[in-house]
């Protein structure tokens, strides 16, 4: 990734892309959505990880998880349904085997954590706080694909707050809480989580969905239901960011169907401080860096000096 044409003409007047998400300083507002970027090495052949604003790694649990039965993926109109089921090596092996690779980069590492109980979250937070190279935690209370925990925690404002509180008590790292769209009132959950001490919010996790194979006359996914992501969910995600930005004064990492810089800019205009690229990585391994370049071009073309001027700007123009 070189300098864009605009930068080369005007090197002294580059827009500021750096953001601060609840204490995590990112050189640009683009990170990766958990579960779509592995632990980093998977995409290192295709882009320089140093260019990313941050990386949010695959969800980590206390013990290793084998994940859900196959098939785990179904393609749907302009989207995908997945039911991976948090397959991961467990926190011990993550720290020993995956983290050392990422520490070599100039890149804030945000670890997504998921538990069966409130205590699991607290333990994971404590354990990861003592590891070298973790910049922040993303608390996954919104995974639709696990039987225990996951979305259960995120769909009730009181339990969402309880998990947030327990994590905050167990760590000095910035705590981002990832919200589920599978609720009647996402603002109510966001408000409770904010009161419980969250430093930032990620939204949205996947939407619970279903696909049926009409030849076999049964659900496509081994686990029946799965989480919908990709361009199909973008309007839902944008709406959630818009609503929460109005009521909650926490930085938001917006995500849900971002394929291009234009999509990312919509999220920022709705109120996101940063954005995460998810499903797009599967389609275009260089989606993250192309989004970063596009945001930079947009700022230059619109003579916006600092990305922060853009956050929530559309809220003023309604």
């Amino acid at each position: 990734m070189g300098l864009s044409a605009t930068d080369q003409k005007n090197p002294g007047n580059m827009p500021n892309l750096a953001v601060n998400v609840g204490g995590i300083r990112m050189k640009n507002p683009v990170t990766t959505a958990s579960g779509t970027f592995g632990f980093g090495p998977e995409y290192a052949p295709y882009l320089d990880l140093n260019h990313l604003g941050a990386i949010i790694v695959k969800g980590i649990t206390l013990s290793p998880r084998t994940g859900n039965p196959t098939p785990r993926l179904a393609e749907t109109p302009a989207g995908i349904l997945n039911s991976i089921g948090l397959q991961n090596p467990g926190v011990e092996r993550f720290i020993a085997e995956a983290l050392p690779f990422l520490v070599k980069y100039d890149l804030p590492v945000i670890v997504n954590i998921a538990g069966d109980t409130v205590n699991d979250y607290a333990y994971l937070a404590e354990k990861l706080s003592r590891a070298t190279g973790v910049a922040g935690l993303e608390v996954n209370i919104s995974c639709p694909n696990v039987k225990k925990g996951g979305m259960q925690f995120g769909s009730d404002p009181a339990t969402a707050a309880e998990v947030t509180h327990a994590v905050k008590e167990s760590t000095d790292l910035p705590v981002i809480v990832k919200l589920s769209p599978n609720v009647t009132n996402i603002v109510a959950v966001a408000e409770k989580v904010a009161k419980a001490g969250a430093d930032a919010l990620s939204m949205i996790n996947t939407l619970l969905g279903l696909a049926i194979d009409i030849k076999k006359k049964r659900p496509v996914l081994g686990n029946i239901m799965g989480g919908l992501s990709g361009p199909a969910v973008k309007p839902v995600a944008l709406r959630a960011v818009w609503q929460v930005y109005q009521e909650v004064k926490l930085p938001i990492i917006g995500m849900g169907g971002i394929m291009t810089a234009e999509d990312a800019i919509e999220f920022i205009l709705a109120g996101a401080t940063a954005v995460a690229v998810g499903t797009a990585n599967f389609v275009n391994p260089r989606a993250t860096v192309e989004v970063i370049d596009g945001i930079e071009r947009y700022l230059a073309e619109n003579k916006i000096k600092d990305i922060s001027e853009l956050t929530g700007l559309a809220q003023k123009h309604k």
Partner: protein
Amino acid sequence: MLLVEAIVSKQEQIVPGHYRLYLFAPKIAEAAKPGQFLHIRCSNALDPLLRRPISIHAVDRAKSEVILFYRVAGRGTALLSKNKAGDRLSILGPLGQGFSIPGARTKVAVVSGGIGIAPLYFLLQEMAGSGICADVFLGAVTAKQLFFSEEIMNFGHRVIPSTDDGSAGYHGTVTALFEEHIQKDNEQSNLPMYNKDSLIYGCGPHGMLKRLTEIINKSGISGEISLEERMGCGVGACLSCVCKIRDKEGGVQYRRACVEGPVFAAGEVIWD
């Protein structure tokens, strides 16, 4: 592991619904090994969204071409079949672990079911280059779908065909043909051609591969099979394409077809 824009050199229909696609992609043609695959974006639109994994069928290093052979199975491959010379396609590859290339004196059997010949053809091309003559058990539903039989013979291999409808060769499944062949080999000879130093390679539909691995495992001969799975990213991140594999300690693990596969040792695959 490259992300490149390949230029379509040509595309030809072999029989209805089955195409050979020739792509000008010098770096990929240079790096590709038999059993590896390409992850191809079939459309620039958002629907269908995902890339399609297609095994590498052959390479023409003189022309810097990588060649695919595929069957139209859904929307992605239907779009792919519309590509003409000069069109450009976003290609990720070569990906995955391919077949191990046997030593020069190894007795090799290749067992193919239908479109399964796609990656095995590349293996046969490479083996011919190193002077190995394999027994190729070429199975199909019907005679017209016994793909590339003459080309494979011209490589110097022996082709033993089978068809489900009996329109050519052995009347029955390719696995039944192969099993009879191994049994005869054992019964009629004090020095069977297939022994523990032999290698069996297989690719084809799920049921055929399941049966083939049973035969391979019973015979005590080593084998490698190429699996086809639903795939997301193709680079090991999404954990969608996992297969149940028995590890060395006897435990069961999910392994990614895109990174640890798509070729696995026949003995380690666990079939549901």
